[in-house]
């Protein structure tokens, strides 16, 4: 029996996966950067410049898009994280854990496209909520119902993300709570810690690492999704993925470097935010433990 040297075995085992990541991810990021700087792979005549970045950064549409993206991602992630953890603590207290987990798992599986449809039919001016408000005498007609979809602030987008991501955080927090947290809380109680102190110095620090990891995924997703802001948001200001795709689809090919510049900004931004957040959380948990 032939025994291959260890490094070669590892390299061969990893080769298919790293080929996929190398071609599609590393290659994709590299191409976005190159094409944002003026590289034209099919035409062969590359004129290198930072014009696309200059055009994008001075464009009010991009600035508005950046602000909207950060606002929606931050609010959605923050609300979903707080609600999800609260929900997990509530379920632990009240019981019915198996059934609630099944419910959360079910909502996790709903594609975001269907989520956008559902939230649209619920919150639109003529949606179900508006009809209920009318029946209760709270609104006169569809026009007087507050604009919650295709609105400038992004409430519809936030509602969809919170609805879909809260159960995700709850599932992660519930799984973390079941791993011996109860015993440690019991120890803290025996040592004389009150309910608030137990929550602050035992429960939350133990929940923080897995919940932080999950909320990083939520944040990355809310910055990346195309169909939810495309269907529930406005064409202007649009979130960054929508803005990038609009310019990519422009019939004027001269706009394409701008699409690549936005894609590059989006990729760099998501990596920076995620790294910063992970560092912050690592620091917080170290201090408390």
């Amino acid at each position: 029996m032939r025994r291959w040297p260890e490094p070669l075995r590892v390299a061969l085992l990893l080769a298919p996966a790293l080929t996929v990541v190398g071609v599609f991810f590393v290659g994709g990021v590299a191409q976005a950067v190159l094409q944002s700087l003026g590289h034209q792979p099919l035409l062969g005549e590359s004129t290198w410049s930072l014009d696309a970045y200059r055009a994008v950064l001075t464009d009010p549409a991009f600035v508005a898009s950046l602000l909207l993206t950060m606002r929606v991602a931050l609010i959605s992630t923050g609300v979903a994280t707080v609600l999800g953890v609260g929900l997990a603590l509530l379920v632990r207290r009240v019981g019915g854990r198996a059934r609630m987990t099944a419910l959360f798992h079910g909502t996790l599986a709903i594609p975001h496209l269907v989520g956008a449809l559902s939230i649209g039919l619920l919150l639109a001016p003529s949606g179900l909520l508006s009809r209920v408000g009318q029946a209760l005498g709270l609104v006169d007609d569809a026009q007087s119902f507050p604009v919650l979809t295709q609105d400038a602030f992004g409430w519809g987008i936030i509602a969809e993300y919170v609805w879909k991501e809260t159960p995700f955080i709850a599932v992660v927090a519930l799984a973390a709570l079941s791993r011996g947290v109860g015993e440690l809380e019991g120890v803290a109680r025996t040592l004389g810690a009150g309910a608030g102190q137990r929550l602050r110095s035992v429960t939350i620090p133990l929940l923080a690492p897995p919940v932080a990891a999950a909320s990083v995924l939520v944040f990355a997703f809310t910055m990346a999704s195309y169909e939810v802001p495309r269907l529930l948001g406005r064409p202007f200001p649009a979130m960054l993925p929508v803005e990038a795709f609009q310019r990519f689809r422009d019939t004027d090919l001269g706009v394409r470097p701008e699409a690549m510049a936005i894609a590059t900004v989006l990729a760099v931004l998501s990596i920076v935010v995620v790294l910063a957040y992970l560092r912050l959380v690592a620091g917080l948990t170290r201090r408390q433990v």
Partner: protein
Amino acid sequence: MSGPRPTAGTRLRHRAALAVVVLLVLLPLLPVLLWAVADTWRYPDLLPGGLTGRGLRLVTGSSVLGALGTSTLIATAVACLACAVGFPAGRALGMHSFRGRRVVQFLLLAPVLVPALAVTLGLQVFFIRLGLADTVTGVVLVQLMPTVPYAATLLGASYANLDADHERQARVLGAGPWRTVAAVTVPLLRPALVTTWLLTFLISWSEYILTLLIGGGRVTTLPLLLFSAIESSDRTAAAALGLLVVLPPVLLVLVVARLLGSRDDAFLGVARA
């Protein structure tokens, strides 16, 4: 479980809070269910004025069935390929220690965190040049990017829990390396493989923008039909299609959840679907 025993009043309040949560989670699906069978549903009415089978006829029509076939074909191919590529990578991650491990882990995490659209815009010209744009093959290939890292990570976690002695015994008894994998490793990892297959299937099933970008609208999957139905503001058609898109994933995930208990890492994939 912790703290003093709650009083009857507190328990009642807690139960009420939980009931509100269940209602809030299910509420957005209610208008979809109603619109799917609504013939007319004028504005202030709380319930549809009449019922129709139009939605049902639409989702059993030839164009939707064609898209159902395309979606199933693409998602099946993506799930099989992601498992095939992720299986050896998972072995390297779970059973071997090697230099550059952190780089590999970063490379397998980054595609999960960086927007897939931002990564793919620059590649589209190459799909055109290679004749892969507007083809099912091209769509399957591009969807490997969001699924392979996830399959490798998930299978790596279960490889790490695998007892290497089982494989060693098979080898001692004279089985070759391939035979050992087929007769020992795959059966031992079957729950993880089934889970990974189903969850990568779901990621592919829900994918919209990569399919549009590389498929160019020619490769018509169910999410593409659903998107144009939502845009056309034919609410009955959109709701009926929505139900068709949502049912398979929800059923599959409930099956998977039963298969693997409450292992949370698996659901990192579903959350992105």
